[in-house]
């Protein structure tokens, strides 16, 4: 029955085919043009993206609720199964953490006193928002997340996001009610870092390898990787991860943050120290 109807359609096809083919060619041309324009002028496509994200985020916000609920239920079941064992572990961890807390408080006081003596001004940034990740904006070459906050909530381009364990990424586009968070694993991500106890400066690239390590410097697996704050884009001394392998000039880093299971992120408000300005231009602006 259906076969016959399909044949009916194909009887008319030759008459409509020319028009359809022209439409198709025009659309292919248009898509190619968009691709080329996007490559040469990315501001235009970025603006379109932010505007669309503004529309999409409320929808995605609602749609992602069932997934969150399922996730929560699954976690609950697992928690219930392991509740006793986990309780023992937690007690042990708690005891150890209390020792660490005492140590940290003492060090913090000491550090503050030293900084006062040396007249150091530090800006480590402050968490001011904890938005929800409502959509995944990733593909084989892009690693990003959509957040349900935007300009209206005080989010600005360039702000930094962390999870409970470390740096996650940076806000690269903001709409009224949405923001795009570029993850550290994205191809285009570059973060100035410090590696190891000696704090060698380098750059963390998007494939989680370290680039531009000073010549002759040796790093070992286990070495801590922190943001350096160089360039004033990221706050200094944020934990990023640890070196896992260092072989054939390729140093790989295992991130502390877990971008696969990211449901909430902390957005940090960070204003870098004003850079040295050309006195003439700053005079002109007054």
């Amino acid at each position, binding site marked *: 029955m259906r*076969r016959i109807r*399909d044949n009916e*359609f194909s009887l008319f096809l030759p008459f409509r085919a020319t028009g*359809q083919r022209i*439409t*198709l060619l025009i*659309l*292919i041309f*248009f*898509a*190619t*043009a*968009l*691709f080329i*324009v*996007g*490559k040469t002028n990315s501001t235009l*496509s970025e603006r*379109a*993206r932010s505007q*669309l*994200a503004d529309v*999409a985020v409320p*929808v*995605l916000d609602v*749609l*992602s609720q069932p*997934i969150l609920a399922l*996730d929560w239920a699954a976690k609950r079941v697992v928690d219930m199964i392991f509740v006793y064992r986990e309780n023992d572990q937690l007690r042990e961890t708690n005891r150890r953490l209390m020792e660490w807390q005492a140590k940290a408080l003492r060090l913090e006081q000491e550090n503050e006193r030293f900084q006062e003596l040396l007249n150091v001004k530090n800006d480590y940034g402050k968490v001011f928002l904890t938005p929800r*990740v*409502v*959509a*995944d*904006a*990733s*593909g*084989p*070459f*892009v*690693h*990003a*997340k*959509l957040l349900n906050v935007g300009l209206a909530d005080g989010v600005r381009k360039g702000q930094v996001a962390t999870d409970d364990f470390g740096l996650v990424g940076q806000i690269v586009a903001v709409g009224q009610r949405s923001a*795009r968070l570029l993850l550290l694993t994205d*191809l*285009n991500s570059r973060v100035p870092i410090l590696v190891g106890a000696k704090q060698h400066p380098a750059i963390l690239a998007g*494939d989680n390898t370290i680039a531009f390590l000073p010549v002759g410097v040796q790093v070992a697996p286990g070495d801590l990787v922190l943001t350096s704050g160089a360039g004033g884009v990221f706050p200094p001394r944020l934990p990023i991860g640890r070196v896992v392998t260092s072989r054939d000039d390729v140093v790989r880093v295992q991130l502390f943050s877990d971008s*696969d*299971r*990211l*449901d909430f992120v902390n957005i940090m408000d960070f204003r870098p120290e004003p850079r040295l300005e050309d006195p003439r231009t700053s005079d002109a602006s007054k």
Partner: protein
Amino acid sequence: MKPSVLHHVDTGLRAITPVLLTFLLLVISRLPFGIEGLESAMPLLTLMAAYFWTIYRPNLMPSIALFLLGLLQDLVTGGPLGLMALVLLLVHWLVDAQRRVFLGKSFVVAWWGFGLVALGAEGVIWLLACIYYDDLLGVKPFAFQFMLTVAIYPCFAWLFSWVQRAIVK
């Protein structure tokens, strides 16, 4: 007999079901599932829809719809604008020319054909992404996405043909 307004609405709704369904799948595929590695290798659901409907009901998945769906996908995934739109249109073009090969054949033939189309599409996506980013991108995530897309095609082909039988008619 003159068809009633309701009848028109009914046929209209049935006719846009394939496009609406693809749109819905596109939105769902962007939700944060929290499954490790899935986000970068999310199967190309729009590719499946473009292939299936171009073979079985090309009039219900016009090129303009594919263009818009592809554009939407580019916008939400953060990929180069126009890339998926171009790929879906090329698939539409190719499959439309060859649809008689697949019509009325067994599912295995259609699946095999989809494998070929997906391989070509993923290759074009990789190539265009390399051009866009001026960089030789690693093939691994693309290969993984291709395999996942082909592997779960039967599930969606089943869903689409059920929709075709039950709703589109």
